């Protein structure tokens, strides 16, 4: 294909995918509210449209029409940069995820997995720059917690991913999916547990949502944000949840593998979406059933249990694959 046709087509595809992902994030928020309602024996939002389906769009319109307000005491440039950074890095991470056989932007990128880890560290910059630039006590406390949490859990996550890389022999997500005749959750159960717990911590969800603990820190790092910038933080968080679900599906649940997925790629997309939705449900379920952990519990769990478990997992994987495979 000539470059004059290639770049416009890619741009159109990107716009479509970004709009789709933003809609998906909106409906994840809606789904979360309905499922939480179900689990807590109440209704949840059910008035806007059939089953309340239009609630997501109503929320978006409300947030868009709010006044843009810039507090006088903030560090202006970083305050404006932070929400953009949060959303853009997550959206960029989706580029390397294969959602069907041969359906992706750049799943054969040879260092795709490392690319995701790098972007996730940039993502956290958005969160703590947002907190720091607001320069109030609550937001700075939220930011400090974010950094400490990141340092503790990013390491465990990387260590867990090494097990997958050892088995598949590649950093490219496409290769990792193609190698999974048996889903890696069966070959790497401990790696899966470590990765998923670290993933929950990375997305700041319950039981690890200390950076935005409502009853201690007002709203945590985004206390001083309102209107559209707040909506972008919100969007970034829910896109992050969707992304961690997609990544877990790709790395441990066999990606798009399933009956008839080899011959019909679109069926593969269906299997991929199904697995991702199941994980998303798990995220929401966790929110309804687990209380928030204490600060020192979070740190000691990360360093004393999660990281050693990940290291043992790597050593075991390396030994077994060297001796029997």
């Amino acid at each position, binding site marked *: 294909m000539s*470059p004059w046709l290639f770049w416009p087509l890619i741009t159109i595809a990107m716009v479509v995918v970004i709009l789709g992902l933003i809609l998906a994030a909106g409906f994840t928020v809606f789904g979360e509210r309905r499922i939480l309602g179900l689990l807590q024996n109440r209704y949840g939002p059910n008035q806007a449209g059939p089953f309340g389906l239009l609630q997501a769009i109503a929320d978006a319109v409300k947030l868009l029409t709010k006044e843009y307000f810039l507090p006088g005491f903030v*560090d202006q440039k*970083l305050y404006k940069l932070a929400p953009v950074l949060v959303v853009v890095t997550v959206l960029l991470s989706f580029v390397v995820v294969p959602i069907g056989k041969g359906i992706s932007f750049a799943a054969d990128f*040879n*260092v795709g997995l*490392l*690319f995701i*880890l*790098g*972007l*996730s*560290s*940039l993502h*956290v*910059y958005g969160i*703590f*720059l947002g907190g*720091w*630039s607001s320069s109030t006590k609550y937001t*700075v406390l939220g*930011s*400090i917690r974010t*950094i*400490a949490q*990141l*340092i503790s859990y*990013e390491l465990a996550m*990387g260590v867990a991913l090494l097990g997958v890389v050892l088995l598949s022999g590649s*950093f490219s997500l496409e290769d990792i999916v193609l190698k999974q005749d048996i889903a890696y959750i069966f070959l790497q159960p401990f790696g899966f547990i470590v990765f998923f717990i670290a993933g929950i911590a990375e997305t700041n969800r319950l039981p690890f949502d200390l950076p935005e603990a409502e009853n201690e820190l007002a709203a945590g790092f985004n206390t001083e944000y309102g209107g559209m910038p707040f909506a972008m933080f919100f969007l970034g968080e829910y896109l992050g949840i969707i992304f961690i679900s997609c990544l877990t599906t790709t790395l441990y649940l066999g990606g798009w593998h399933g009956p008839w997925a080899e011959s019909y790629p679109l069926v593969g997309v269906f299997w991929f979406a199904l697995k991702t939705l199941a994980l998303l449900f798990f995220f929401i379920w966790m929110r309804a059933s687990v209380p928030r952990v204490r600060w020192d519990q979070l740190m000691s769990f990360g360093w004393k249990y999660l990281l050693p478990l990940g290291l043992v997992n790597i050593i075991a994987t390396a030994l077994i694959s060297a001796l029997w495979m």
Partner: protein
Amino acid sequence: MMLWHFVFWLSCAVAVVCSASLLFVRKPMHGAVYLTTAMCALALAFYLLGAPFIAMMQLILYVGAIMVLFVFVIMLSPLQETFPLQLQDRSLWPGLILLILMLLELGALLFGGLQVDPTTPQIIDSKAVGELLFGHYKLAVEAISTLLLAALVGVMYFARHLQRHQERKLPEQQEAK
């Protein structure tokens, strides 16, 4: 392709401008952000030169670990002003002389026929890096890891010492209240 030439030189320019602005910022956090941007630009340059693994390590290690620690320290320290570069300072001279020497060397390299061609790079993948690290440079890797282990043990010793010190102090403070 022309596009990659353009991206390469753009990322180099961003890295240079960010590193230079780092010297003149007022708030330490802004300096950290400039440095982070420079690291990202460097990662891009590494990638276009045919070293994808090194590029991603630049992102993960420098941006994701080292800069995060810097930022952590900046946030925890109460000091909110820096001391931007001032040319009157005497202690600056040795550094400046070294900097000028290095720039001269760099100029000699650039104008002495060194060719950088980002379009036809020799791609060095992660496997090659791993083989070199644990083959040819095994001794260096081992030495560095021993050094880091020693640093870790040292930090733990100091932290423990500090903790005991604080525990002894706490009851007195409570009495004072």
